[in-house]
């Protein structure tokens, strides 16, 4: 039972991550390879606020959103002027830099030793320390996120984002400022990713930098490439499939020593086949066609 609840918690956290990346990649067309960095910034910001300052989880969560959004400008202001491959490379660079700081600034983050003993979230005396209570917490935030992304994309704002994705020059030609909209979308994506980071920290009660690597950023892109992006259901389909698939493999009694590799090979195969035959993914509206 607890095992099933664990999967539900992870689905909730990954839904938040993929929907926020969906805003950046699926709606705005920006292939950002540093989403895991903002996930990590969120996790570290709330963890440090809770463990060093004794701040309540929910206050720390809000602070981590703000911190992540502010730091997103450090990344977006130089990189959003770059196009195509160069934007990808720029975000890749920032992913590596931010990871390197988390890993090596030991006096601040404890680096590879990680931070243990993170308190469970509590609200008005109720402590979210059981798997079932945590499921309700992550599910609530996941629903909030889906609602938020739905509301802001089914709008004039979302329509402008799509024009930038389709043709940035034409978007300027009709009087929209692409840099402003891209910066906004990128910051919102970073802010929402920080929610996922905070929830992850409060759930695992231990974090270290290895959860926020380039590979993790690429994994998030894989989820969107397989499930699809540019609408709400694509990321949901992708997240459910990619979070549940490992458990299916376990059910098939594939030994634990080889299961991770077989899993990744299946993802990779799906990625290759979809990008060739169905670039918009299983349920998405947009792909790099």
């Amino acid at each position: 039972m607890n095992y099933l609840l664990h999967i539900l918690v992870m689905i909730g956290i990954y839904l938040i991550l993929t929907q926020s990346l969906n805003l950046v990649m699926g709606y705005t067309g920006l292939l950002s390879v540093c989403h895991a960095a903002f996930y990590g910034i969120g996790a570290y910001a709330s963890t440090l606020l809770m463990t060093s300052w004794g701040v309540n989880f929910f206050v720390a969560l809000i602070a981590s959103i703000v911190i992540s959004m502010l730091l997103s400008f450090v990344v977006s202001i130089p990189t959003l002027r770059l196009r195509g491959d160069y934007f990808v490379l720029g975000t890749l660079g920032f992913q590596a830099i931010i990871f390197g700081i988390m890993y090596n600034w030991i006096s601040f983050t404890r680096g590879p030793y990680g931070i243990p003993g993170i308190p469970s979230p509590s609200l008005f005396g109720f402590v979210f320390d059981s798997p079932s209570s945590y499921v309700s917490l992550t599910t609530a935030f996941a629903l909030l996120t889906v609602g938020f992304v739905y509301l802001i994309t089914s709008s004039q704002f979302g329509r402008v984002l799509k024009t930038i994705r389709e043709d940035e020059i034409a978007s300027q030609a009709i009087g929209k400022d692409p840099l402003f909209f891209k910066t906004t979308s990128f910051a919102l994506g970073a802010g929402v990713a920080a929610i996922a980071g905070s929830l992850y920290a409060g759930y695992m009660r231990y974090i270290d930098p290895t959860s926020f690597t380039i590979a993790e950023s690429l994994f998030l892109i894989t989820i969107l490439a397989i499930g699809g992006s540019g609408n709400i259901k694509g990321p949901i389909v992708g997240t459910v499939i990619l979070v549940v698939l490992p458990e299916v493999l376990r059910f098939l009694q594939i030994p634990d020593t080889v299961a991770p590799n077989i899993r990744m090979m299946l993802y990779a195969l799906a990625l290759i086949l979809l990008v060739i035959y169905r670039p918009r993914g299983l349920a998405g509206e947009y792909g790099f066609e």
Partner: protein
Amino acid sequence: MLPQLLANGLCAGALYAIVALGFGIIYRSTGVFHFAHGAIYTIAAYLTYLMLVATNIWWPVAVAVALLGAAFSGVLAELLVYRPIQKRRASPLAALIGSFGIYLFAVNLIALIAGNETKVLRPGVDITFEVGSVILTRFQLLGFATFVVTLVAFFLFKKSRLGRLLTAFSDNPALVEVLGWNASVIRIAIFAAGSLLAGISAIISVMDIGMDPHVGMSALLISAVAVVVGGVKLFEGAIVGGVVLGIVQSLVVWQFSVRWMDVFTFSILVLFLVLRPQGLLGKKVRLEEV
């Protein structure tokens, strides 16, 4: 102290330059951001290991098999993945995602077969030579010598008819086709040659320091940074970028610590992207002209 550091940096940079040159040639002439270049590197490394340890074969045969395996894998990536994507006239980012898929598949296949743990080919300490005031290991010298040979071969090739064809193809593939060349054959040759270079760098490096399935990732990242630092528009950019990176890293390790090497490397990447996107060798480009 300083000459030794520069020599170490130069030898590391020489190997970077070789793998980066392969990446740069593919990127510049086909437009594919060949993420799977890292997988090719890993494949060459493990083929070498497999040949030397499992079959105990004469080492030149092992090297030849590894190089052929690398070239073959590169061609396979082009034929099975990039060509269908290119036929659809997809955005370059589609090829990048496909390339990432190849990388994931190959690296996990290798890990499945050979395991995740580090493999070492050369136990103990390497033989060293004294060259003036600096001390170099056998593999450092081998790496540097290979680099010089690669450089000479590359420049001879560039001056040849085929080399000029490659440059023309990079600038305008359609034109080369009009002149009667088959673009898909040229692309196959480019992937084979680029992968061969990845293989050369991989074999020397892993014979010296060993390997795990993820060695290719750092080789790829270094290649991408080297190409940007040197300049994307010129094939020589990757060479200059690789050598410069090797030396800078060596100095960073000396002045700060090996821990901060990656942060420095990628800060250099970001600085170049923002302040000098044309790289060290490139002429000033105005982004607005694109």
